[in-house]
């Protein structure tokens, strides 16, 4: 397996990094995170159109650029680095993949090109109020009517669910035989009976919504009887994507902290000259670099169709969860009192580290997943 970024990939990354530094400085992040929406249509369209970010990993036949997960992970890593406020992970990762793997050709053709162009934002509603991330633990059940389905129940922790044009819902369907299967449904965000509540999230750069469905009309878009496998693939691909986003944030925090301790003087010397600071900075480097390796490897392994990919994805997520949070804790500590203040930017990443630690499952959860895939 090839396991190093090509020159083109590196160039793309550098370009993207400069671009995001310019378009998404923390002043901008702070402005947008304070809004209910969390992002601005016009501003996001400008960024996205110029770089084709939402299109990158969507196959060419559906209007995308047809790159692999590795390339999309470069985008995610840089977005994690800059905390860009945009409906990217919800539309271009979670939902696009659910449609790509779980929807019938008709709906792929209908939705993917619009997601690729950025004209359509979409959210994937799969978790419920229990907050369980396992696909099999969903309980919402769709009721079949003559031509369509109707949904009743609650989906929660839906990323960008309060603002997306389209909601793709994962729900169970009762078969005639009495058994249950999982299916995907599309729901218009303005559908009657759908109430969308923005949840108060500690990480204001990542908006979550609770969606309450009361007899809401929904279209079944599944390609197969049961989308469990498709959703599992979507889930693990999203875990890999999130891991890459996370190591981008962790790396930025690490760099900023290192710069700070080099500049900061106490007792007549740079605090970077204290041996304990030096060793802590080295530990931080090791945490982040190892997590980066896992995230990069997982993306490449996914593209290569590696058989152990479920365990690999969980390693990446577990590694990123711990490394990011640990980096954030160290970052605040090494900044001292100033790192605990609102005006200092450290807490923006600290809070993203906390929400990412939990989103799509904690390290504990993923460790159990790896063991399940190794102990069969």
């Amino acid at each position, binding site marked *: 397996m090839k396991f190093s970024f090509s020159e083109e990939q590196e160039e793309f990354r550098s370009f993207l990094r400069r671009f995001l530094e310019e378009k998404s400085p923390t002043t901008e992040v702070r402005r947008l995170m304070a809004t209910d929406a969390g992002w601005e249509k016009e501003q996001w369209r400008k960024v996205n159109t110029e770089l084709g970010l939402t299109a990158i990993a969507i196959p060419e036949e559906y209007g995308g650029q047809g790159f692999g997960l590795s390339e999309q992970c470069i985008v995610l890593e840089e977005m994690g680095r800059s905390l860009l406020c945009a409906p990217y992970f919800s539309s271009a990762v979670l939902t696009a993949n659910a449609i790509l793997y779980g929807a019938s050709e008709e709906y792929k053709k209908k939705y993917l090109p619009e997601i690729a162009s950025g004209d359509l934002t979409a959210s994937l509603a799969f*978790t419920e109020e229990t*907050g*369980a*991330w396992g696909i099999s633990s969903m309980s919402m059940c769709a009721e079949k009517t003559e031509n369509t389905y109707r949904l009743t129940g609650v989906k*929660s*922790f839906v990323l960008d669910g309060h603002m997306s044009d389209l909601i793709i819902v994962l729900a169970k369907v009762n078969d005639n035989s009495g058994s249950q299967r999982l299916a995907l449904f599309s729901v218009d965000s303005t559908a009657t009976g759908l109430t969308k509540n923005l*949840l*108060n*999230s*500690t*990480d204001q750069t*990542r908006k*979550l919504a609770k969606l309450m469905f009361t007899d809401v009309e929904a279209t079944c878009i599944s390609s197969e009887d049961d989308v469990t496998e498709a959703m599992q693939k979507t889930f693990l691909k999203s875990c890999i994507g999130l891991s890459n986003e996370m190591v981008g944030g962790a790396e930025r925090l690490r760099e900023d902290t290192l710069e700070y301790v080099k*500049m*900061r*003087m*106490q*007792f*007549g*010397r*740079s605090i970077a000259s*204290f041996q*304990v*600071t030096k060793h802590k900075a080295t530990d931080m480097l090791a945490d982040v670099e190892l997590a980066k390796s896992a995230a990069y490897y997982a993306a490449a392994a996914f593209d290569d169709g590696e058989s152990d990919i479920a365990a690999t994805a969980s390693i990446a997520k577990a590694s990123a969860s711990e490394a990011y949070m640990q980096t954030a*804790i160290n970052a*605040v*500590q090494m900044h*001292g*009192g*100033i*790192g*605990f*203040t*609102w*005006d*200092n930017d*450290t*807490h923006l990443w*600290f*809070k993203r580290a*906390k*929400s990412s*630690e*939990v*989103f799509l499952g*904690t390290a*504990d959860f993923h*460790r*159990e997943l790896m063991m399940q895939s190794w102990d069969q």
Partner: protein
Amino acid sequence: MSMNEEQVRNEVREWLKENWSPNLDLVEWRLKLADSGWGMANWPAEWYGRDLPVSLVPAIEEEFNKIGALTIPKSGIRMLAAATILNHGSDMHKEKFLKRIITGEDVWCQLFSEPGSGSDLAGATTKAVMVGNKWVVNGQKVWTTSAHKAHWGLLLARTDMDDTKHRGLSYFIIDMNQPGVETQPLMQMNGHASFNQVFLTDAEVLPDFQVGELGDGWQVATTTLMHERRAADSLRSWGQASKGDGPIYDQERVETETTMQPYKWYPQRAGRVDLIMDRAKETGAIKDPAIRQEIAKLMTLHKSAEWTARRARAAQEQGKPQGPEGSLGKLAASNVARAAAKVHTLISGANAMLTGEDSPMDGTIAEILVSFPASSIAGGTDEIQKNIISERVLNMPKETRFDADKPFKDIPRNTVS
């Protein structure tokens, strides 16, 4: 029980019988305490005390508590001010300030920390220059609790840039209600603003308000800091307003609530181990074997820290010299807070992303998750703690100093944060 203690207890009981009433006004009562010396019995008889040894204070307070009589709250910046003034202040200072410290009429704040000197307080760069017959002060202070309500500030300022770092500082009492003193709240990452920044722009101090000799500021500040450390140890038990019916209790409750306002989130900062088992049971997380291990690790840490504190206290009560166990409380508290935040995250799962009314326990859990990092910073970072313990308890060599002997102006430093 020594005879002495029995005598004192009798005297207090007698005095209380004649003087205590829950119908008194709070200040009125405290004036009685000041005048009789029973409020701060270990202070000098000359200055509102009774010259009694500090070891008798618990017995005296016990007698107060027995009948529900209010004592003088022993914590807060104003008590640091009192301790400093009693040690280093002039008679004028004692006369002017001590009584109103006892009555609680004056609010005090401490102006030591600066953006450029956090762990290194002696690196203060705020300058005091004598202009005409007044000190004129310029600089910026930070981490100042209650600065916006304070009448007086304990100020550490540099009066000589050519002398060494520690010898170039002097100590002042500054009037906070003057045009040159501007106070701004400093918001924290958890949304609270417990502290202030204080901007001093040509603020004035009368020469009489200098405490200790010129250039002795660091020594005077050391007294304040020593008392601050003791106060921090007892902070947890502080702020429990007395229970009782009557106007004086109501007045005290209001006072306590106001004083405690900035510290509202402190229990969350410490990690709220008390909530762990209930939360685990209520969410069902207690059934998760991996989470069980994490809970048990946390409880092991928490309990052994608690027992270490008890061990230290028991030794102290026996009059033994302090062993190493007495110096570990703050470090252990940082570890407990960090571990507790981790376990609360595991227990809450996806809900750990939410805050405010959407979060478990109406935001309490969320507040833990963004407050715990302060445990290992506030009141001396873990790193500074470890330096101190290794040097003072383990007698390991001191860090080489690069800032001890040269003129302060030649020491490399940050000018801003």
